[in-house]
């Protein structure tokens, strides 16, 4: 078999496929065989390049030429010019919008890549269970620098100037948090890594711990030095066995190298880390609840002040940061605050990792600079909506966040803009929804989550959220009234205003944001008793279209409750009294004769 001299990579991502990438492949193959080059050049369809805006994309290897907006009829030119004559097809090259220059080598057009990996810099590159690989990638160079060249004040100053804000959701300035903890004097202080990632649909912390555990260990050590703590604790979900295993391995290796323990780098500074396990309580992501859980108590939040920086774990000053925040620290120390603060927006520096999920083509873990727009995330990186359906909303911030819609697509993503839009950054879950999602049901889903995860300590969260979810349930069952809509809004406002902890205070956000952005959908449920998305079972009716039904009996045979009747080869009928709306009949019908009304 021949070894190919050249490869033509044609983007087969959904966005590009829609604009005829299959045609491009076949045209290219046709041209190549005409020229007798089939054995020298291989054409292959690939996954999405993440540049759908300029698709379809054809990349020529090994010279890395990157053709954009290629049409099937360009195939002949590419073969004739580039493959045979070795001349790049200038008109298909990407034009830099800044200086209007055509760029031929994709190595010089990294900027098209919307993603920048800082926190995830080592994930997927190094073997997380081999400390040597971390070290060879500048690992532990930051703590070395800190312990041999810097004072605690300088470290705090560097982190402050970088503009890094907490990646766990709240966005509190990390440097400031460290400074407060450093100023509270005590015989013992603690550094805590919050790895109790609980947002359903967010898994970046787990990925970092599984892919790059040493970066967190190194950062916690830096944190310990900065605030004067010698003990670190990682509070991690018990549901993450692999992350726990990799952390244990990493801590063991760091100890062997003397990077944890006594007298690190001969500096006289001691630091060590222990693991503490969560046990399935979302509220333990809240720092006071987390601390109580580590102390062996029910994970109930307590009011602040006192803040953990004053009185935290074992009543000692404690600094709590989340995994992603820590993952940024070593590189900030190495490359400096100035470098970091150039990335992102004015008030939100650096990058944010998002877990892109839901009805989107490229479900995945992405890291983007702050200030990117939702449109870029969804349509470029995410490759657009699955099955070519219409975009409806994207939910950020998990149960504490809200839904963003069409009108927010071009809003730059940062802490403050998301809050202004009625959502929040949260830990970085980003769930994309299409027109098959019912927004009332989505609000109900989140409220049911909050009800289940509420600790039950304060009235607004314990009873208020329960009532909110009951009203939503009533609406999805078709029993809602206009007064209920009013009640939802008022109750939501009081819960926000009176709940004890962050979980309670933000729990009405999914309701408020869907009310604001999809008010008509609520009205439709309440007034017209209709659910356009076809989600709310009580508001749906399954009917068989007599014109399309051929009487194959497939539906009747598969109906679990025998609600479908009819003679063979005659149109069937669904008894709506018996129908449980399970959808089994629709799945079985080969004639599209069954529909939801």
């Amino acid at each position, binding site marked *: 078999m021949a070894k190919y001299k050249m490869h033509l990579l044609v983007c087969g991502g959904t966005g590009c496929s829609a604009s005829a990438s299959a045609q491009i492949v076949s045209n290219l193959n046709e041209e190549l065989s005409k020229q007798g080059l089939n054995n020298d050049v291989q054409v292959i369809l690939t996954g999405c390049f993440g540049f759908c805006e300029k698709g379809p994309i054809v990349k020529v290897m090994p010279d890395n030429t990157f053709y954009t907006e290629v049409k099937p009829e360009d195939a002949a030119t590419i073969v004739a010019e580039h493959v045979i004559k070795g001349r790049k097809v200038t008109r298909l090259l990407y034009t830099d919008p800044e200086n209007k220059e055509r760029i031929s080598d994709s190595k010089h057009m990294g900027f098209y890549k919307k993603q920048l990996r800082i926190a995830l810099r080592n994930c997927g590159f190094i073997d997380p269970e081999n400390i040597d690989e971390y070290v060879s990638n500048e690992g532990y160079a930051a703590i070395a620098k800190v312990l041999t060249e810097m004072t605690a004040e300088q470290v705090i100053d560097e982190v402050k100037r970088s503009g890094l804000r907490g990646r766990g959701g709240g966005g509190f300035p990390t440097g400031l948090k460290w400074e407060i903890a450093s100023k509270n004097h005590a015989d013992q202080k603690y550094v805590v890594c919050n790895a109790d990632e609980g947002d359903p649909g967010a898994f970046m912390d787990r990925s970092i711990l599984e892919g790059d555990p040493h970066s967190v260990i190194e950062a916690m050590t830096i944190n310990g030095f900065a605030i004067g703590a010698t003990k670190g604790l990682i509070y991690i979900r018990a549901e993450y066995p692999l992350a726990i295993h990799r952390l244990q391995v990493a801590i063991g290796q760091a100890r062997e190298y003397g990077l944890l323990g006594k007298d690190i780098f001969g500096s006289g500074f001691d630091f060590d880390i222990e693991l503490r396990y969560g046990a399935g*309580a979302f*509220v333990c992501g809240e720092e006071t609840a987390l601390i109580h859980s580590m102390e062996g108590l*029910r994970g*109930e939040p*307590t*009011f602040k*002040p006192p803040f953990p920086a004053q009185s935290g774990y074992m009543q000692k000053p404690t600094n709590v940061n989340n995994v992603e925040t820590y993952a940024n620290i070593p590189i900030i120390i190495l490359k400096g605050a100035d470098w970091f603060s150039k990335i992102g927006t004015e008030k939100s520096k650096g990058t944010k990792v998002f877990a892109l999920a839901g009805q989107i083509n490229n479900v995945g873990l992405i890291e983007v600079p702050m200030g990117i727009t939702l449109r870029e995330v969804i349509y470029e990186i995410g490759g657009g909506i699955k099955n070519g359906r219409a975009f409806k909303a994207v939910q950020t911030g998990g149960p504490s966040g809200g839904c963003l819609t069409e009108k927010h697509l071009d809003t730059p993503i940062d802490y403050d803009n998301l809050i202004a839009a009625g959502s929040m950054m949260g830990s970085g879950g980003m769930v994309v929804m299409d027109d098959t999602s019912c927004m009332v049901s989505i609000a109900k889903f989140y409220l049911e989550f909050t*009800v*289940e*995860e*509420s*600790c*039950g*300590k*304060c*009235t*607004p969260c*314990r*009873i*208020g959220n*329960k*009532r909110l979810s*009951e009203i939503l349930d009533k609406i999805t069952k078709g029993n809602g009234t206009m007064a209920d809509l009013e*009640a939802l809004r*008022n*109750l939501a406002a*009081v819960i*926000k*205003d*009176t*709940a*004890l902890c962050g979980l309670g*205070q933000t729990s009405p956000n999914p309701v408020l944001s869907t009310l604001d952005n999809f008010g008509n959908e609520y009205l439709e449920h309440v007034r017209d008793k209709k659910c356009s998305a076809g989600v709310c079972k009580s508001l749906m009716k399954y009917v068989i279209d007599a014109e399309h039904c051929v009487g194959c009996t497939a539906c009747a045979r598969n109906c679990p409750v025998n609600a479908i009747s009819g003679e063979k080869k005659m149109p069937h009928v669904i008894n709506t009294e018996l129908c449980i709306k399970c959808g089994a009949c629709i799945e079985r019908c080969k004639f599209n004769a069954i529909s939801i009304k």
Partner: protein
Amino acid sequence: MEFVNIKIDDKPVQAQKGQMILKAARAVGIEIPTLCYYELNGQQLENRPGGCRVCVVEVAGRKNLAPACATEVMEGMEIKTHSLRVVNARRTVVELLLSDHPASCLICSKSGKCELQTLAQKLGIRDIPFKGEQSMYKKDDSPAIIREMNKCIMCRRCETVCNKLQTVGALSAVNRGFMAVVATAFEQDLAHSTCTMCGQCVQACPVGALSEVNQTRQVIQAISNPAKTVVVQTAPAVRVALGEEFGLEPGTIVTGQMAAALRRIGFDYVFDTDFAADLTIMEEGTELLERISKVMAGDKSVRLPILTSCCPGWVNFFETNYTDMLDVPSTAKSPQQMFGAIAKSYWAEKIGVKREDMVVVSVMPCVAKKFECQRDEFKENGNPDVDYSITTRELAELIKQFNIDFNSLAEEDFDNPLGASTGAAVIFGATGGVIEAATRTAYEVFTGKTLDKVDFTALRGLEGVRSATVDFNGTPIHIGIAHGLGNARRLLDMVRNGEANFHAIEVMACPGGCVGGAGQPFHHGDFSKVEKRFEAIYREDAGKPIRKSHENPYIKQLYDEFLGKPCGEKSHHLLHTHYFDKSKQIEVEG
């Protein structure tokens, strides 16, 4: 003291630095309603979970409302306690609580004294806009305490009292979210838990979720049964608290009106537990002196200190937690039980009534007494020495049921002989009182000298753990005192670990002693009421013509006619008891 300048409702206020908004406001007469907040001033007990959110206030510059109970005053703070936003939020919070609370106020034991009911009235709530699922729990009928957790509002007062004040650990918050409730381990009945029935949870509960087993009906039935001779005894602490139920100031002494009311209700004999308290001193005092002299003589079979055993909550506590020390407490029964035993033997014989035709009712400041009188060892052929034990609150209820105008009653005396008592008996109602009463008698017996001054002020006070040494004419007697079971645990642990040496220790389960008992009128966290009752106890003592138990002429008569001598054979049978190991032990299965 440092101060900060703040504004509350536009009024400039100088508040103590470090103080919470709630207290700063109360100090200047601005009332902010609370529900979960519960403090026993001076008893190191504070329940401040910040959970009910009723006390929220608006603080300028803060994005959400602040709980006044848990927000510290800061220089320049501007606070609005009753803005529209605050009142709306407070109202919604109370409406939410009501939406998960049975609206059975008409028949609720707490009706009229319920803090939630009062709050709903104050806020003018006439409708509960939120309908939905209500929490349902099985009713728990223990021998003394009823738990109807459908009514629980998760204020956590009971949990805090049970764990922090009493260190009993019977209760904990369980489950979470809407399902969260305070319960025993595995949500069993209290009877199957480590509960001591001290009832401080009942005293603390702002609503009707926790209440005592009410026996007023049984009492009325007994009284109206002509075949029964119904005898009533009243504990010392009742007379200084009962008046509160009729609008009198805490600490008002109503002994005479109480005796009169009991007669109006129809009790055949109105006696006094104080008589039995004097008897207790005779027995316990003798036992104390016997043990001291044996120890002094080098007898290794007896141990010191001797622990008082009047308090049934305390007895339950050591039977569960100090099973290695079951030989240490005095074997003397409590005054309630001594009274019952004497009434159903000596007195029944004397008036020619058969034991089974006599009904003994006790009025107690206590919930645990209900449990005590049901103990098997206090029964003869199934017939209890004390048939019914009712609380101060239940007595008030009876008086109201009989439409007696309590405040206009003329004072009457107790009947004799079992109604006669000394000042030493009265002080049983306050922490330190039993041991002081015992000291008055033991001193004279031990030294053979007459006490000039009967007031042992060193033994008095409201500090949780106290100790004093009394000079018995050259022999120093070390005395320890604890009230509140948490304090008792601290003291007992010191004894167990050999860190403290005492001859005698008095323990009362409730803070302040019986004056702060769980059966007393609800103080709703205002401990100054208990302090006033405490002071009244000593006033009552000071006003008594006889102040030493052994000088009570009817006690002398009882020994002469019936018992013989203290700690004699008859006493041993009637007036002494023994203790059981109620601890949990892990055992290998199979």
